[in-house]
């Protein structure tokens, strides 16, 4: 009797775990072209999944990512995170036991105008540049349609640029209307012209975390904020 009861309890626990398993949170990395979205997506995957796995290729040519790329089941475990840069590490990180299961969605850069001539400046032939412009336009529409499925947005901005653009204002306004939680990451803090304070001043109602996705600076702060906001 005892054995049968134990088996039944174990079985119902397993069934419960199967049905009430916490679903992964879908996090979309959004932002203007060349903000560093793919670099950030790659860093998250390198840190928590596999050092050799890339979500996409990042280059200096804008609109390099022209399709939405989703990498499912990324386990963010702050207790296991290796310290990439001890000088910027958060002393509280060790005490922070937060864990978070994510689907990371890397999206094409949002822009209001796409002109093939901008690509020709990077040495692309006219035909190739026009094709890229068409794909980039499709990519923007796809990225926006994906918002219907997103649980949280990591809005990436280039902290060396003026943050007060139509694109940034429109995205933030829309996220607020949809009540999607947003974290702003002020990327490229390693560059001399970086001014994350400008972003903080422009959008004071949101958390702004200065990071360098390329160098790995302040990543623990960002992961900690993600674990808090997107839980």
């Amino acid at each position, binding site marked *: 009797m005892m054995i049968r009861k134990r088996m039944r309890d174990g079985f119902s626990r397993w069934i419960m775990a199967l049905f009430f398993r916490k679903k992964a949170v879908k996090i979309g990395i959004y932002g203007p072209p060349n903000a560093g979205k793919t670099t950030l997506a790659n860093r998250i995957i390198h840190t928590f999944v596999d050092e050799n796995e890339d979500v996409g290729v990042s280059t200096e040519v804008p609109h390099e990512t022209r399709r939405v790329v989703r990498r499912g089941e990324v386990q963010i475990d702050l207790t296991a995170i290796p310290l990439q840069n001890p000088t910027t590490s958060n002393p509280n990180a060790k005490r922070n036991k937060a864990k978070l299961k994510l689907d990371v969605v890397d999206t094409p850069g949002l*822009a*209001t*105008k796409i002109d093939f001539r901008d690509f020709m400046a990077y040495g692309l032939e006219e035909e190739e540049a026009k094709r890229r412009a068409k794909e980039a336009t499709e990519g923007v*529409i796809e990225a*926006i349609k994906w918002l219907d499925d997103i649980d949280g947005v990591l809005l990436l901005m280039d902290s060396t640029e003026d943050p007060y653009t139509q*694109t940034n204002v429109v995205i933030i306004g*829309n996220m607020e209307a949809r009540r999607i939680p947003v974290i702003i990451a002020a990327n490229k803090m390693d560059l001399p012209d970086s001014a994350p304070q400008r972003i903080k001043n422009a959008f004071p109602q949101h958390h702004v975390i200065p990071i360098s996705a390329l160098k790995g600076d302040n990543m623990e702060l960002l992961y900690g904020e993600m674990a808090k906001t997107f839980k």
Partner: protein
Amino acid sequence: MHKCLKCGKKFGKMTEEMLRGCPECGGNLFLYVKNGEAIKAEDIVERVQVDERVELEPEEAQIESLRIMSPGVYELNLDALLEKKEVVMRIKDDGTYAIHLPSLFKKKRG
């Protein structure tokens, strides 16, 4: 020469200082006049002819989410893309539109 429209002082050459305003009075409107020509701002208004008034379309009236300006040049209306389900393209400025039906019928992703 350049004439300050506020104090009327004339300058032979545009200097860098003048880009920040008239060195005399701080005014920032200058009129280019030929040497020896006596002219007032009111006269200039008479000279300017407006051929036709360009009607600007109010933003709410734009139904399109995407405007194709020429092959390879696109203008995206992020507001419309974010607010509306369907994708409406404006192909030319003569009022040709295209509606992307799959975007209207597509089921929500699971």
